[in-house]
């Protein structure tokens, strides 16, 4: 409509007016588009949350590894240290199964060792370790958005 061209230098009042309206409308259009994108980005999701509480450390016995299938991770406890390891295959996102040697992927045969490092198959990188924190109420909170280096454990006082 009143799209303007920066090359067309504003001459006289009419052009200036057109330029002004044009800019205002362009900005408004861009802002509407931006606001629509903000609208379309959900603020809450209904799937499993990426930041979730997995209960108090007492739930996990020392030396145990508990699979949480819905959260797609395992909780590993060694003495006073707790860690959360992803069970999502880094190849194409299948869920890996814990095995005697570590983890096996049922889809394309990737294998991982106990630390999650790739030992075979098409997987490009190691399984992710997630950051664990202790919430004020004493429960372990895992944040799937924060990937940490392998062997990063959360120390707990017990």
């Amino acid at each position, binding site marked *: 409509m009143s799209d*303007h061209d920066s090359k067309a230098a504003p001459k006289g009042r009419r052009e200036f007016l057109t330029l002004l309206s044009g800019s205002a409308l362009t900005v408004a259009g861009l802002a509407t588009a931006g606001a*629509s994108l*903000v609208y379309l980005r959900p603020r809450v999701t209904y799937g499993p949350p990426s930041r979730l509480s997995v209960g108090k450390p007492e739930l996990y016995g020392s030396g145990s590894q508990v699979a949480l299938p819905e959260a797609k991770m395992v909780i590993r406890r060694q003495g006073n240290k707790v860690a959360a390891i992803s069970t999502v295959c880094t190849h194409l996102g299948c869920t890996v199964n814990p095995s005697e040697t570590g983890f096996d992927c049922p889809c394309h045969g990737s294998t991982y060792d106990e630390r999650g490092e790739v030992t075979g198959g098409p997987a490009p990188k190691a399984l992710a370790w997630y950051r664990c924190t202790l919430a004020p109420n004493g429960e372990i909170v895992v944040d799937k958005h924060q990937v940490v280096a392998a062997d990063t454990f959360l120390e707990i006082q017990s």
Partner: protein
Amino acid sequence: MSIREVAVADEAGLLGRIYRSIFRVRPVPQTELERSQAVASNFFFHIHSAKVYEETLKFKKTLGLGLFSLFTFVVLVITGILLMFYYVPAPEQAYQRMLDLRGVVSFGTFLRNMHRWGAHAMVGLVILHMMRVYLTGAHKAPRELNWVIGVVLLLLTLFLSFTGYLLPWDQLAYWAIMVGTSIASYAPVVGDQIRFFLLGDDDVGREALLRFYVLHVVVLPAVLSALIGLHFWRIRKDGGLARPSTDE
């Protein structure tokens, strides 16, 4: 392409040529020729003739009601499409989605307000537009067919608004549709069949919600858009907006 355009296109670099391939004329047309081309070569403006009678441009002639109706419809289409991203046409979820729009979706309340008030406004504007057309005698020959299309457009607008009324699935919606469809069932012989057909059940429920949703977001807007196109095309073919005959 006129000679001047070709010359301009040749002067420009690659970007300029890409621009010219999309927009045939300079950003702000300078001559009458360019103005005609601006209208005739633009897909969106093509509905217009290149020239219009100055007499019909006066605001008090039409009060802009037809265009207001159209633009309200445009706003409704845009907000409606956005709202569809968060809506689920199922009784268990529809209302909760309304709560989510009100609570947790950015600008959700504003968009829903706009869609809702826009729908009411459109019904009112279309009725006013119809009154304007009649009171200025613009429905008479040769514009009879366009008037009839207009009446159909009014009915479609009412039905479109009515189908949308059910979607929030609150008490207001539910009982309004219950009452509204019951009025339809008073039609002789086929009344109950019409209602059954419309609701997909004996009463307003899951099936009715789904049916109204499909009618509201696909069927009716498509038919309405097509008829609006026809309506505008006829305006041009019937010689522009009605104006006093100069023969008199």
